[in-house]
């Protein structure tokens, strides 16, 4: 094969694209590991968990996030772009009126917020919401 200037450019941009892609899943894998540690690798349904989060958060230091999962006993929140994906776990007691709660979280960059709910029958449900972050919340 003859290497022309055009081909070299094509190869170059291809490897660049690969390099920028491969830096992404590092954090996402952490989240998958954290989720499978929670669920024990069980299959997860979707649909009964709702995440209330802004589409665009100007300040990643305080992003208001709410979760609602009727019939859940426990909801765990993850942020897949943070250095540590775990965010919080809500366990609902006998006097909890609704399986919902809201709080404020830190997001390092634009990423997905994932909620995994453990239902009363022991199955798991999940939901995902993307939040675009203008200023990250982890810098020093």
């Amino acid at each position: 094969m003859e290497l022309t200037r055009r081909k070299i450019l094509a190869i170059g941009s291809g490897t660049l694209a690969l390099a920028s892609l491969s830096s992404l899943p590092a954090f996402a894998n952490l989240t998958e590991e954290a989720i499978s540690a929670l669920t024990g690798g069980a299959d997860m349904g979707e649909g009964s968990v709702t995440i209330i989060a802004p589409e665009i958060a100007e300040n990643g230091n305080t992003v208001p996030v709410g979760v609602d999962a009727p019939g859940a006993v426990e909801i765990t929140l993850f942020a897949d772009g943070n250095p540590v994906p775990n965010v919080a776990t809500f366990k609902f007691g006998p006097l909890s009126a609704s399986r919902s709660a809201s709080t404020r979280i830190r997001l390092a960059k634009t990423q997905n917020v994932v909620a995994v709910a453990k239902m009363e029958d022991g199955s798991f449900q999940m939901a995902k919401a993307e939040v675009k972050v203008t200023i990250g919340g982890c810098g020093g």
Partner: protein
Amino acid sequence: MASGVKPRVKVPKSASAGGTVTIKTLISHKMESGQRKDSDGNIIPRSIINRFTADFNGQNVIDVTLEPAISTNPYFEFEAVVPEAGEFKFTWYDDDGDVYETTKQITVS
């Protein structure tokens, strides 16, 4: 980090028996994540509140495990059932072993 920690809780003064109330809680705490560095490049050690619980007359309403990704001055909003008049008890557990507590009375009408 026992200085300057002040819990604030908003609970309605009364509710109908068996009714639902919305509770809002906030505690002033810097929630140092353990990810930041100081001006010399040393990592500032983690210092957060790692657990928050709310109980009503000894029965649990919500039990939250907090990670460093919770913002400064952790805020929670949730709903509780009020079966009878009594007392809400809110407890925050600090990384350094401190426990912050506050209580709120509620009557039923």
